[in-house]
């Protein structure tokens, strides 16, 4: 029995990581109606940025991420302004994904990397009954919740958030409100890059990473968004958790079935509830 309970708890914690992956994707879709196909590779790029800051400046990853955040924010702005604001910008994302992967391969080689933070990596909190939660996974989940809360506050309680939603609803009329759409897109992309960088921190702390793991992260992020339902940040959190639990429960049955279970859960939701578990009322 504890085995299953443990699997569920680990699933929720894993879900926190997936929710972080998904939040950036959700944000970009929520403003630009665009599925960022390079999303996974950008997470990996951010992980390497943190790695670079950590190793070159001798910083702990938790500090190095603070260095990487503004850098990634600027890269996000630049990417939006230079490449993606063009009419066919979204079509450029797949080749961009290939370029990022192989660029990282050229620079860093295909070696597995890891973000090292010392004792905290193995620290855990005992919950009794033989179940323990790792401190890093717990932090991941808490960070995910914090990001989701922040995004909700931003979108639904600030003028910028209103502008985001208006632009997403009707690009033309948004301009009639005096909204500079290019600027709004760039800010959204910059914010997404910040979320991506936070996700990258926890990705790198939790497991090994290398330049080729991007596409799989995109799939998990995407699955989490769809399971949760489009248009809702809390839905994205829920979707991530459902995906995480599906994977850990599948792994409990047979370790080789972990990822497959996630895919099957996604496809099941797609067939039974195509709009996701918690979709926004209107779309």
């Amino acid at each position, binding site marked *: 029995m504890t085995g299953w309970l443990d699997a569920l708890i680990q699933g929720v914690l894993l879900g926190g990581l997936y929710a972080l992956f998904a939040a950036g994707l959700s944000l970009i879709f929520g403003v630009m109606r665009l*599925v960022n196909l390079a999303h996974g590779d950008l997470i990996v790029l951010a992980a390497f940025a943190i790695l670079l800051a950590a190793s070159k400046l001798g910083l702990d990853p938790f500090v190095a991420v603070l260095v990487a955040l503004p850098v990634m924010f600027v890269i996000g702005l630049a990417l939006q302004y230079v490449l993606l604001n063009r009419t066919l910008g979204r079509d450029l994302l797949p*080749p961009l994904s290939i370029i990022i992967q192989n*660029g990282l391969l050229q620079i860093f080689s295909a070696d597995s990397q890891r973000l090292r933070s010392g004792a905290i990596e193995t620290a855990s909190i005992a919950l009794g009954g033989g179940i323990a939660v790792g401190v890093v996974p717990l932090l991941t989940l808490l960070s995910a919740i914090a990001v989701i809360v922040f995004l909700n506050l931003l979108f639904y309680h600030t003028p910028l958030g209103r502008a985001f939603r208006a632009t997403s609803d009707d690009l033309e009329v948004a301009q009639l409100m005096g909204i500079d759409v290019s600027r709004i897109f760039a800010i959204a992309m910059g914010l997404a890059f910040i979320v991506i960088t936070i996700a990258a921190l926890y990705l790198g702390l939790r497991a090994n990473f290398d330049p080729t793991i991007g596409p799989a992260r995109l799939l998990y992020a995407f699955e989490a968004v769809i399971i949760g339902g489009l248009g809702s940040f809390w839905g994205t959190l829920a979707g991530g958790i459902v995906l995480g639990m599906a994977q850990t429960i599948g792994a409990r049955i047979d370790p080789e079935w972990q990822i497959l279970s996630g895919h099957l859960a996604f496809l099941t939701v797609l067939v039974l509830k195509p709009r996701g578990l918690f979709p926004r009322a209107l779309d």
Partner: protein
Amino acid sequence: MMDADPAKPTQAFGIDTAGRAPRLAVAAAGVILLVLVLLPAFAGRNLIQDMIFLFYMLALAQCWNLLAGYAGLMSVGQQAFVGLGGYLLFALTLLGGINPLLAIPIAGLVSALFAFPSALIVFRLRGAYFAIGTWVVAEVYRLVFAQFKALGGGTGASLAPSVTSSVPGIEWVKTLFDVRTPAARDIISYWLALALIAGTLAFVYLVLRSRRGLALGTLRDHEGAAASLGVDIYRIKLAVYVASAGMTGMVGALIYLQKARISPDSAFSVLDWTAYVIFITVIGGIGTMEGPVVGAIIFYLMQRYLADFGAAYLILLGTLGILVMLFAPRGLWGLISERYDLTLFPTRRRLVILTRDSDRGKVTAK
């Protein structure tokens, strides 16, 4: 660009699908086909193998082009059917004892059947979501096949010599061209590949010229308008998806017959069977039949001479893709055909105004 003679009431209109070049192109195609069939007589084994690669990449590109360029279904999951076709070939021959030549069409048929449940799931999604949905389906195939221990599980399997040598015609080829068994096998594979690509091109061409093909064009250009005209979108998309899956499955079977070795990661590789295929189609010109031909040739040349550069080569491919999309959105064939007003596979319809004396005036009314 209308004929400036509107007041005459006896004007009639006709539909003409012939462009400027096709008669010449038909003759040229005949010659090319003949040369290709006879190629093994004077080409070395390396060239034959290269041509096999070119043919099957072109076939995959034509299938993807039909899906995405005409029916508007941007799939990133065609590798599902390549792998399925490959594994079916292995299963049918190794486990079922069926002759490889027969196994290829069976693989295609079964792939087409598998396309139905796939479609049911992924057709609930649109645009980029559809794309990723197809990718997830392909991943499911990959992970499931990795569980089949009978076919090698995660590490894969090889085709036994008894199977590879049971392809009919090997002895005849050996005598005819005075070559050894492996070369003879390649030559047979080459003819199979040639037959497949010829069949694929013919099939795509006939579909596009048919009434359904006209509907396909409207789907690509404006789905909303198509729906309002009574075009049964779902049915057509399903038909295209299934047909494409079937053809892709056959190509997959051929590919793995020729490679004689399969593994889940190879058979369901996004890079090999989707990314490269999309590259070929986009570089050449999406939405035209000639485009993938141009793209496949360019890609083949790049693979041949540049693939050794590894990651740098892929960066080059990506950059080239971006440049073409930015500056030549209709692909390289698009540039050529616009410049010289050329069409080799005439599938567009033109409205023709017939004069009173029934002389065919080739005036195109836009």
